């Protein structure tokens, strides 16, 4: 996962990673895409999802299997992630949550002690458990300092009370990382993070799957913590006796860092979908070529070329972000640019594709309309493009960018 010091810069992937991506893409088109409409309509995964995933000719890194580890490529872990996300979503994105251990374990990696890493992070990475992420509450989104869920210490337990929304994997996770305030008067600095196994008494899921514009089969859940008690050592950065000295990060910072690394993956997801929309549209338009005037055909072709160029730009900035993370550089702006650019661009690409096909392009006979609905989330969760712009602006003008 290191690069030779004097190698020449290139965006060209290693043949191995290139091939892995191609195989994923072909499989995703063949096996995932045909189930996409039903997953959307029924707002759940196909019952035979396990059998479907088993048809994949290459390892998917399924968290529910321990013999499915994704190969390591010399291009780097995060770069390989991008190839994975784009290509597995090219068919459709419905299966994505089944292929990810969630993002809760990333929070553990940022904020946990060595022991917590071993218990929670490693188990998620080995595919032995699925983690959930519980941060957002009804009255706030980006401004995480407003966490109102409380955690009160009672002897050697923490008692959590509050409710969370938009919790990815909330209803299928084995444990969730829940952010709660231990002291309201401290604002953001009073927020800590707790690992809550989902079989803990007092934990419940009032709404397993919220009713959404898109990603309808993705379970985003409303969670309730009602006098929910966890051991002292379930607070990240603590052990059974109190604060450990391995980590001094505040809860807020931990979550943001974990999110930052995942942002390019979310861009890769929508890049895959938009590329699928574009390829499908190009094919359908080609069938109509003889019905179109040259002038409109050319205008449509110019648009398609510009859209492909925009996707290439999205990929480049994404790869830069992945490369930077792989090499451990402290650079938040690359992931932020990646996530600021791709989601809105991909929305517009899919909309334009539907437009180029006329009203039928937006019909449920095709998947474009689903993809249009699915993509929108990417500009909302894990930091909107407005939030990303603030991060980028700070690179130039520092903290005064508000």
């Amino acid at each position, binding site marked *: 996962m290191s690069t030779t010091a004097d190698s020449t810069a290139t965006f060209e992937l290693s043949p191995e990673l290139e091939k892995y991506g191609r195989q994923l893409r072909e499989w995703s088109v063949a096996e995932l895409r045909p189930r996409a409409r039903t997953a959307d309509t029924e707002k759940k995964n196909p019952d035979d999802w396990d059998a479907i995933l088993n048809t994949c000719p290459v390892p998917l890194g399924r968290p529910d299997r321990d013999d499915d580890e994704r190969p390591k490529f010399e291009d780097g872990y995060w770069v390989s992630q991008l190839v994975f996300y784009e290509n597995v979503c090219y068919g459709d994105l419905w299966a994505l949550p089944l292929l990810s251990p969630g993002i809760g374990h990333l929070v553990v990696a940022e904020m946990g002690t060595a022991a917590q890493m071993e218990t929670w992070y490693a188990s998620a990475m080995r595919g032995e458990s699925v983690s959930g992420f519980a941060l*957002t509450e009804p*009255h*706030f*989104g*980006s*401004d995480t*300092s*407003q966490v109102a869920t409380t955690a009160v210490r009672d002897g050697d337990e923490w008692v959590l009370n509050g409710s969370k*929304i*938009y919790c990815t994997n909330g209803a299928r996770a084995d444990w969730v990382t829940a952010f709660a305030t231990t002291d309201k008067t401290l604002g953001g600095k009073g927020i800590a993070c707790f690992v809550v196994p989902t079989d803990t008494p007092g934990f419940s899921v009032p709404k397993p799957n*919220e*009713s*959404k*514009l*898109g990603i309808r089969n993705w379970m985003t859940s409303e969670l309730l913590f009602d006098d929910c008690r966890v051991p002292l050592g379930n607070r990240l950065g603590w052990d059974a006796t109190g604060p450990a000295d391995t980590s001094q990060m505040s809860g807020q910072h931990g979550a943001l860092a974990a999110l930052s690394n995942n942002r390019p993956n979310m861009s890769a997801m929508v890049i895959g979908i938009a590329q699928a929309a574009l390829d499908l549209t190009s094919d359908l338009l080609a069938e109509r070529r003889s*019905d*179109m*005037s040259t*002038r*409109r055909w050319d*205008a*449509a072709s110019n*648009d398609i070329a*510009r*859209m492909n160029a*925009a996707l290439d*730009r999205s990929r480049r900035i994404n790869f830069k972000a992945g490369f930077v993370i792989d090499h451990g550089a402290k650079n938040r702006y690359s992931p932020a640019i990646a996530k*600021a*650019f791709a989601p*809105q*661009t991909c*929305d*517009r690409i899919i*909309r*334009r594709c*539907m*437009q*180029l*096909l*006329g*009203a*039928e*392009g*937006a*019909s*449920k*006979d095709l998947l474009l*309309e689903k993809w*249009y*609905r699915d993509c*929108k*989330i990417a*500009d*909302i*969760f894990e930091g*909107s*493009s*407005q939030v990303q*712009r603030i991060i980028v602006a700070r690179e130039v003008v520092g903290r005064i960018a*508000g």
Partner: protein
Amino acid sequence: MLNLALDGDQQDVVEMTRDLGAAVLSPAAAATERGGAVDPAAWQALCGSGLTVLLSEDLGGDGIPSTVTQMTALEQLAHGDPQATIAAAWSGSAALFVSEHGSAMQRAALRDAAVTGPSHRGAVALYESAGSHEIATTVETDGARVRVRGRKVAVPFAERADTMIVLGRDPSNHELRAVVVPPGQEGMTVRPRAGSLGLDATEQAVVDFDLELPVEHLLAHEGLGLTVARHRLILAAVQTGMAQRALEYAGDYASQRIAFGKPIASFQGISFLIAEAFARTEQARLEILDAASLVDDGAPEDQVTAAVDAAVSYASENAAETTRNAVQVLGGHGFMTEYPVENWYRIAAFLSTVDFDPLASAFQPAF
């Protein structure tokens, strides 16, 4: 002389339609969306307004308002619920074609059809895969028969329209032609409705035509282009009323939602989105007004068509972007069906596909 003031009657129409939108349509919008069909009370209110079914007085209607009046009214109604409004306006537009271009016999039939009644549905089959810009449907007259061949998309109430107008071109001279096709006519194949990104209450579907009718089914050609232009503006007006509603909704939300210690509307990253949406929506409104006044003046068809092309394109791009910004301002809530903005987002994008022209705008990435 340049004059952008509405006259007294038009002012009254604005108030009436705005009230109707707020009091009747808006509360019923969720039911319309859920049911995939316009709420009956909303439908009746729309038909009763005299501004969706356009019927001349001699046919028992309220008279045909000017295009300016009609579009202003539709914008206000769409502010209440775009879906019910365009369903009723598209349905009612069929009556306009007959009122304006029908023979005595056709007009008599329309008079007897109770077109403003609760169950009557009309349809204008205009749009094709390339919007309204390269109409491939042919309407060919051969002696006493007229033959209609082509494929129409987004035909509202395709399965049950009582009055169906089909637009095509005469292959001999490329002129516009319109034919009244009776319900259940042989040679008319409605494809199964799959549903769409949005606007399913218009019950729109793809229809294939390959049929012959007596030539008496032809409407008169004279001025047909102007009526088509008027029909196309319905979409632009509804997009614009919806955009206005969406930006106001987002503005209200942003005024109340607190982040980082203040209402999010006080961040220019939010307020500028809203300002640009407001500005574009105002421009779309003026562009529609301009095009509508050209229709009312009976301006040359080329000029009218160019004005309508521009107005439709701009209104649709604006509605799609403005409803997106509304979702964006609401953030996670915007993505939830409990809030209306995700539905406007779908409707605007769907409508933006219906009368699209790749010459009128170009793809632009986020930045």
